[in-house]
């Protein structure tokens, strides 16, 4: 995959994710409605691919404003990833040399790998995760399950143990998928399924779309690294 194609795919997917978030905000809040209307409009422009260097810069500016306004990300990790994708996309457009552009875009791919691996590492060193107790707590009393009926899963220790180890192993093994194009395709498909399940069970739909927008950077990075090794 060429850098141009990967960047285009990223801005398309990111634009879609930001559009969903912005329209949701316009619908639910009267305050700052004009800011999010502008963000919606810029997201559509980003999807279209018109004047992307200025669009990413303006969206980045709104992103910094949001960090101030909400005293941090509005929706935790998903907004952090959104700003990271936007920052690296803007840098890719604005950095003068191709080598630096590749470094910025490659950094996004690297962070994507780390996002899974570090999450897996902090879980595997925690005995509560290894025994399934952590997931029991998530279902029993955390704010995440989307319905009261899902809280019943807290009483199914075998299922939770299986789910815990599935998540831990997937997150720890994910970096190895980088070694071959086929394994990366499988790795990203499993990762997308993981985010889809999180969206259904815990309402984390923003994670699904934002993480998806970072996938082209990893596919491009793998091509670039393998091409470098092959000479």
């Amino acid at each position, binding site marked *: 995959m060429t850098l141009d194609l990967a960047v285009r795919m990223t801005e398309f997917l990111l634009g879609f994710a930001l559009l969903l978030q912005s329209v949701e*905000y316009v619908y639910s809040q009267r305050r700052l409605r004009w800011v999010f209307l502008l963000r919606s409009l810029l997201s559509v422009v980003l999807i279209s691919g018109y004047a992307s260097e200025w669009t990413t810069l303006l969206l980045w500016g709104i992103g*910094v404003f949001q960090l101030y306004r909400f005293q941090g990300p509005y929706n935790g*990790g998903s907004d952090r990833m959104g700003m990271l994708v936007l*920052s690296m996309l803007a840098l890719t457009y604005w950095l003068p040399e191709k080598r630096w552009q590749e470094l910025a875009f490659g950094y996004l791919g690297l962070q994507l790998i780390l996002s899974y691996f570090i999450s897996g590492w902090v879980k595997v060193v925690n005995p509560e995760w290894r025994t399934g107790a952590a997931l029991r707590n998530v279902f029993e*009393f955390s704010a995440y399950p989307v319905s009261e009926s899902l809280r019943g899963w807290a009483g199914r220790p075998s299922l939770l143990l299986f789910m815990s180890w599935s998540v831990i192993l997937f997150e720890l093994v994910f970096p190895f998928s980088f070694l071959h194009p086929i394994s990366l395709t499988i790795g990203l498909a499993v990762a997308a399924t993981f985010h889809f399940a999180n969206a*259904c069970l815990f309402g984390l*739909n923003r994670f699904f779309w934002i993480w998806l927008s970072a996938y082209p950077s990893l596919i491009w990075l793998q091509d670039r690294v393998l091409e470098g090794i092959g000479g």
Partner: protein
Amino acid sequence: MGLSVLNWIAETGRLLLPVLVPSWRFFDEIAPSPRIEYCVSSSATLSDETWQEFWPRPVYVSVLKMLRRMIWNPRWNENLYLMSCAERLMSHSTRHSVDEIFDRLIADLLGGKYEQSYVQFRLVFLYWYEGKLHRQVTYLSDVRRVSGDSCDA
């Protein structure tokens, strides 16, 4: 002037650094989980306190609704933001978090039968300890009029 610029740079750095160099420690531990509860009264003294959960989750969500929420989930995402505000309020008490919670509470009550009433919220944290689920009230807000004005009760 110079100091305010330095403060601005420091604040921007504090907000941007975790974005550009994220920690990615998702669910490393399952911390006590907040619930926002509120009570409404016609008097500012709120003598008759009946607390109810703000935006409680539904009993059941169908598969179709889960799929629809993949692209449209404004209330839930706003609720997650309020949970962040509740957690921030416990780690370092800020007026910002209090105002954000009150904004949503009052907007929800405005236009209904509670107009011109008084509202107060509290934070209840749920946690697992020695094999049992515990609830602890950790924060009690001031009282505000549902019209949005502050009130010294």
